[in-house]
């Protein structure tokens, strides 16, 4: 077994300092002279066998021996000895540090966060890092961040460790492990160390190819937080606002919840949360104009996680849904006329189709260029799908459809007759569509009959057959289908319901085209952002809960709030065992990871003790050694 060793054996030359030490000791030993009447007694004393015993000789030269001991301690400290705690030398060890929202939970009032505890343990590892060992620090929340390469540079590792901060987002262990796996292709290793509170799904879709040392941190204290915050359009034109309060397994007690509208408190409720139960609160908010809501939860007892106590919700102004349907699609226009709060274009008195819409339903490809968050193309294959799907004339029929898709809910498509024949071209398949981010909603005999695509610009549905050449308009489900399309459009436009913004990525922001802005995060950092030609800014990272201010030339232009809103993170659940693919399970380690123990601090301390003893013995104790 390898018990330990020295990191810096090159300092052995320091042992040569013993020679000058001994030399100087005897040269310097110029004793003061003291005249006494006679040396008779002293001669006899010094000739006594007891005085000349080895121990007495040792005591006589105690000063020299103490100095040699002190020098040896210093030299051995310079050699940087260490006590081997873990496996042998020359190992690479990636260290994954969870920095998701739940890691910010405190263990007690005024205590330390889980991340601080993880940092402490990793810092111990760094302190005990020997020359042959290399660490690679990786932090992960919903995305992994490689902080350092494999290195034994303690300064670099400590700096990187200090940079790890809590991100108020759920963790994604799978992504982190994939990064580590990719890392192992260039620099192989045997073991990966994971420091986490275990707040992630128990099953991870990952083929584990290395040993995972899962160091689960001690559980945090009780926690209550807001896990959902949304609003639905009320009949009277206002909004019904809902907030969900959940907590950790053993959380209970009274909380007060205050609702702010545009900064003004409009409601305050005090509720009692029972252990293991959630509480749902409802508020009525007037909402003709766009408004901003903030809900603030204040537990009366200790709450270990503060980031989940606030949620933000932006409500749009109340208006009818703007829908564009060409006059040729009579069936759709007829179906839409029966739905309230619809403004249909082109109107019967005008062919004006300018401006933006919330929903475009058209059988003309050029209409797909209209600005709308929701589009439904009818009877043609979108241009980007034409490489994989072609339109035949032999007719088709429905094989299956996604009954759970919101668009097809309560729509019966069985035995529907379709005269068009959308079919895959040779060597094309559903995978090609998925690569383009399309999802097949209705499967036909030779290919997809309906697809859906969701991106930052909105959602696009495409009926690859023309409904006028099918029996769909004659079916009872057709008005329901159109109603579903309208509901989807209202959701996209935010007119039917509004969901609170979650941390991670801010929702797309509509600003001035090509405008240059700065965004100030809750942690007061400022980043530059640029709107595209349509004035949309998307993909803005929101790692912390709080308000994000969009500044233009230093002046605030808009403010968007983002909250954690994650039941998983709020629950502070901790997974004992991680289930990987192929029935591979990794349980939380029961013993802390053993680190190499540097001995030089102890040696320096021993040297200091020797020095203090020497000082005390020769300066403060005239009587000598009793």
């Amino acid at each position: 077994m390898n018990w330990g060793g020295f990191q810096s054996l090159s300092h052995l030359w320091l042992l040569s300092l013993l020679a000058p030490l001994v030399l100087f000791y005897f040269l310097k030993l110029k004793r003061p002279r003291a005249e006494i009447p006679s040396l008779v007694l002293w001669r006899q004393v010094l000739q006594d066998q007891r005085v000349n015993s080895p121990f007495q000789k040792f005591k006589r030269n105690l000063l020299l021996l103490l100095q040699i001991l002190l020098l040896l301690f210093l030299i051995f400290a310079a050699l940087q000895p260490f006590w081997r705690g873990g496996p042998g030398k020359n190992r690479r060890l990636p260290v994954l540090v969870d920095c998701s929202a739940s890691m910010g939970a405190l263990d007690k009032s005024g205590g330390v966060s889980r991340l601080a505890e993880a940092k402490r343990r990793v810092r111990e590892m760094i302190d005990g890092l020997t020359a042959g060992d290399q660490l690679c620090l990786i932090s992960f929340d919903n995305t992994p961040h490689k902080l350092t390469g494999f290195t034994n540079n303690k300064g670099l590792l400590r700096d990187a460790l200090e940079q790890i901060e809590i991100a108020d987002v759920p963790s994604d262990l799978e992504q982190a492990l994939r990064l580590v796996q990719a890392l192992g292709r260039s620099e192989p290793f045997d073991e990966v160390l994971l420091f986490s509170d275990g707040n992630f799904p128990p099953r991870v879709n990952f083929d584990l190819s290395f040993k995972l040392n899962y160091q689960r941190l001690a559980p945090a204290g009780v926690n209550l937080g807001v896990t959902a915050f949304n609003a639905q359009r009320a009949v009277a034109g206002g909004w019904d606002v809902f907030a969900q309060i959940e907590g950790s397994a053993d959380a209970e007690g009274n909380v007060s919840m205050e609702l702010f509208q545009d900064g003004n408190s409009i409601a305050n409720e005090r509720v009692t949360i029972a252990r293991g139960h959630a509480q749902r609160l409802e508020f009525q908010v007037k909402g003709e104009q766009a408004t901003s809501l903030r809900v603030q939860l204040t537990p009366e007892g200790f709450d270990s996680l503060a980031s989940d106590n606030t949620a933000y919700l932006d409500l749009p102004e109340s208006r009818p849904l703007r829908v564009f349907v060409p006059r040729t699609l009579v069936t759709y226009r007829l179906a839409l006329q029966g739905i309230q709060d619809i403004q249909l274009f082109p109107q019967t008195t005008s062919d004006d189709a300018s401006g933006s819409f919330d929903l475009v339903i058209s059988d003309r490809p050029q209409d797909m260029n209209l600005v709308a968050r929701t589009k439904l193309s009818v009877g043609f294959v979108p241009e980007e799908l034409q490489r994989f799907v072609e339109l035949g004339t032999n007719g088709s029929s429905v094989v299956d459809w996604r009954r759970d898709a919101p668009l097809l809910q309560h729509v019966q498509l069985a035995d529907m007759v379709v005269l068009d024949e959308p079919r895959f071209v040779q060597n094309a398949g559903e995978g090609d569509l998925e690569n383009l981010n399309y999802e097949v909603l209705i499967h036909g005999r030779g290919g997809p009959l309906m697809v859906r695509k969701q991106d930052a610009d909105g959602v696009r549905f495409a009926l690859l057959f023309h409904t006028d050449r099918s029996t769909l308009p004659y079916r009872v489900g057709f008005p329901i289908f159109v109603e579903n399309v309208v509901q989807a459009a209202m959701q996209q436009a935010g007119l039917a319901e509004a969901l609170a913004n979650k941390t991670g990525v801010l929702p797309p922001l509509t600003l001035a085209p090509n405008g240059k802005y700065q965004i100030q995060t809750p942690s007061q950092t400022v980043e530059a952002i640029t709107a595209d030609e349509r004035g949309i800014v998307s993909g803005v990272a929101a790692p912390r809960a709080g308000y994000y201010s969009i500044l233009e030339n230093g002046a605030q232009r808009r403010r968007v709030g983002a909250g954690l809103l994650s039941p998983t993170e709020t629950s502070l659940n901790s997974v004992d065992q991680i289930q990987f693919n192929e029935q591979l399970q990794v349980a939380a380690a029961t013993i802390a990871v053993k680190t190499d123990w540097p001995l030089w601090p102890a040696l320096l301390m021993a040297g200091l003790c020797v020095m203090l003893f020497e000082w005390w013995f020769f300066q403060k104790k005239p009587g000598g050694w009793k």
Partner: protein
Amino acid sequence: MQPLAPKPQMTTLLSNSALDRLRRLRICPAGKRTSRSRGEHLSGKGGTSTEFCDYRDYVSGDDTRFVDWNIFARLNRPYLKQFHKEEERNVVLLIDASASMKSGGKLELAKSLAAAFGIMGLLNNERVSAYASHQATDAPDRLPPCRGRMNLRKLFQFIEGVEGRGDAPLDRAIESLLRHHSGRGVCVIVSDFLTFGDLKRSFNILYAAGLEPFGIQILSPQEIEPDITTDLRLVDSETEDTLDISSSADLFALYQEYRQGLENDLTLLCQRRQGRFMSVSSTTPVETILFDQLRRKGWIE
């Protein structure tokens, strides 16, 4: 009426009050060692003193002057009267005046004690002689034997003139003393007894010469309780030899052990030769030694 002027100090060695008290004291040797010459000490043998001792039968040749004629008249038989013989006692004072005695007031005390013994000897009509040893190679300074109070000033002058110098070892000083001295009595040796020499031999010679050894060891406080706090190089005041020692409690304990051992050896050395021995500190007042310690130990009465 004017107060009486204080009496002038007779000597610097002893106060006048101590001198007054010494006048009433005498030296008490353990044995009766006297010289054959006539003196004031009864020898235990028949002599011609005035003090009657015993009767014995007359034998032919006896001096008829000592026949008790009154008894002859009553008993018609001649008996001879016997008388005690009174012999003189020698008091030899040996002052160790080597350089080692200079420190800590040892020599001053030694001189005072020697003077006290000398006074007691002179006032009791004993034959007092004094010696002060300095150099090993030279003969000791000497006050020839004298008797009677008229020699007090001579004794004081001699003792007051003793200075500490030289490296005379005590054993050599005793042997040198015996080369000049004759007569039985006591020999008061005042010294620190810190010598490398063989005291046993010199004490045997001293005993053989008829002198009871009265050893008074005077040690300074520094010798009784050395106050050494650091590593030192000790220098012998007589020989200037050096010795390096380190501050150590064990060492001090051993020193005390050896000092006590030396005191015990010297006590035995004296006692086996019908003598006495005592160790005193140089800081002890001479009156305390004379009128307390020596009287209690029976050295003087």
